[in-house]
């Protein structure tokens, strides 16, 4: 990531009659970073992206890309942008190759150059075996990969990916995420919107969390996780637990929360270095019959829970 700004969004507001879908948000995206917009469905992520792309009229605010004001007829800016929408945007009547060629042809006129770009895009998303297939012959995962190939074949410098992995199998998801990281490594700047926190954690360099049209937190993964009051969560599988014994766990050092549900004990810690050792000692000293014990670092879901009082997927 460099310190060169690729996108600058200042005080963006988008209102639909009585609903404020985007509420005065500002952020910058820097060159060669993967910038994540994380938030639940309906939080305003896609509206923000569509406003940045000049597809939507917005109520107020300023948007600039590559240092220039973004407008619907800013063709010189658009030439370096690639967009992968949430809905698969391909023609059912065209083959995989033809679809990529059509959309790539909207940017690149030279046939020879276009051919090379198409081959590169096909290779990146690993759909080389399906060039002559029609979209209806592809699985959901392959269709998503084609959707991505159509958006990035012209080798854009800035790529928007709006929930590109919705309803995708794990294998395709991994392939897509690896492809995105490769695009960043090759020099592209990525804006990635999703409601899957695992994906954001896996690939994003910086993240903003949006809820009800507002940015509620922003920063790197590590910075954001500091917003959660817990630092470690230990889960233990225990067959039996009574109220008195459960209270005993609260006496351990740095414990912030204890819960027991469905034979699973979850103890959250706000700090400490030997929590898991202390926990095992406590289990043994009190003659608990337990099976699995594992420790987790806080997730972005914990951050979201801390900030909004609800789960990210609510």
């Amino acid at each position: 990531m460099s310190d060169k700004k690729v996108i600058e969004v200042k005080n963006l507001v988008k209102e639909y009659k009585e609903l404020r879908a985007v509420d005065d948000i500002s952020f910058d995206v820097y060159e060669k970073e993967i910038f994540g917009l994380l938030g639940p469905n309906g939080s305003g992520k896609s509206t923000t992206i569509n406003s940045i792309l000049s597809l939507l009229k917005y109520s107020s605010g300023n948007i600039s890309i590559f240092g220039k004001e973004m407008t619907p007829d800013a063709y010189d800016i658009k030439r370096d942008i690639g967009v992968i929408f949430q809905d698969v945007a391909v023609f059912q009547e065209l083959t995989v190759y033809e679809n990529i060629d059509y959309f790539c042809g909207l940017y690149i006129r030279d046939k020879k150059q276009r051919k090379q770009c198409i081959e590169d895009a096909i290779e990146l998303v690993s759909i080389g075996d399906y060039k002559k297939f029609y979209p209806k012959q592809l699985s959901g995962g392959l269709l998503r990969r084609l959707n991505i190939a159509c958006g990035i074949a012209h080798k854009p410098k800035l790529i928007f990916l709006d929930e590109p992995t919705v309803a995708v199998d794990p294998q395709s998801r991994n392939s897509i995420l690896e492809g995105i990281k490769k695009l960043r490594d090759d020099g592209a700047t990525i804006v990635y919107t999703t409601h899957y926190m695992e994906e954001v954690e896996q690939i994003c360099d910086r993240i903003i969390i949006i809820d009800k049209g507002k940015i509620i937190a922003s920063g790197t993964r590590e910075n954001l996780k500091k917003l959660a009051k817990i630092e470690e969560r230990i889960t233990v599988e225990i067959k039996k637990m009574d109220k008195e014994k459960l209270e005993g766990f609260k006496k351990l050092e740095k414990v912030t929360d204890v819960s027991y549900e469905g034979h699973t004990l979850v103890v959250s810690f706000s700090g400490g270095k030997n929590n898991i050792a202390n926990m095992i000692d406590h289990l043994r000293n009190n003659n608990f019959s337990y099976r699995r014990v594992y420790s987790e670092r806080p997730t972005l879901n914990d951050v979201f829970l801390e900030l909004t009082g609800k789960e990210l997927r609510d």
Partner: protein
Amino acid sequence: MFKHNYIYSLRLMLRNKQLVFWTMAFPLIMAMLFNMALSNVESSEKTEPVRIAVVNDDNFKNNQIYKEAFNELSKGDDRVFDIKYTDADNAKKLLSDEEITGYIAFKNFKPEITINRNGIKETIMTYVVNEITCQSNVMIKLAFNKLSDEISNGNYNNIQKIFEEQSQKAFNGEDGIKTVTPKNMSFVMIEYYSLIAMSCMYSGLFTLTLMNYLMANISAVGKRSTVSSARKSGMIFGSFGAAFTIQLFGLLLLYLLLIFGIRADFGSNVPYVILISLLGSAAGLSLGTAIAVLVKKSENAKFTVLIAVVMAGCFLSGMMGITMKNVIDKNAPVLNKINPEAMITDGLYSIYYYNSNERFIVDAVSLVIFSAVMLLISLRGLRRQRYDSI
């Protein structure tokens, strides 16, 4: 960008089975069905003269043109009419007793036709009387023009002679009243003309589909096209050009079937037939564009709206029976001024039946105006680049 979009638009349309069916196969199927269903009906209906009554009052007696015309048309074995000259009350009685198809009374030198129902014989009667009116109007206009020329040149002596010449032409000329017989009329032709009109208007399905692909608020591919660096005008022209190409190919297939398979007659003025077909196709393409922009519903809903509009237009222009054309002509002529199918049908009809270009020109100009209005309406939606919601 034009070429790229043109080539891919052709592929998109030719691989869309629904489009190919409605725009190419459906008119061909309809033409064959019409041929099977109507060719026998026409020949049997033509042979018998139509029994009518004429109210023989002073209005008629002083109307020389119609007197001569009815006299001509009720002579010989291949006569058009069996005419009873009678008073108004008896004419009414004859009609209510179903002894005649209809009767004609004159008011202010204009014929008024009374019929009880709509059928082939009633249509023949209406058609022939309308033809006489039309021919007499042409005759009067030509005579008037010629007289004006002569008077402006100071020749006052030839007035009587000119009028007699024009009268002779009107009755005995190549396109005169004498030629207005069922032998020279094909009621099936109007069905085929209407079919061509339908084929022209169904081309709207092409533009409807292609414009949906360009609008970000309608389709996902529309969003992708809108955010690309390609200019919208290039994409629109490419799509429109491809739609026009395929439409003309489909129309060519229909003409080949009608001319060589069904032996339909389109008269001898081929350039006019081509011109009205081109203008009709442009009207269809522009109608499809307008519906794509104006109807804020799903693609299927837009398809349904377009097909409903086209079929309604075909019905009103006489596809499901020539009688309807006459009913609209008589009762709601304004519908024919806004119905592109009626303009196309009437344009082809005028090429076949009339020597004068006036009616054809009116139809052709009306189609140009219709297309221009539709495109102007569409322009706002097509030029829109930012949407309130997506």
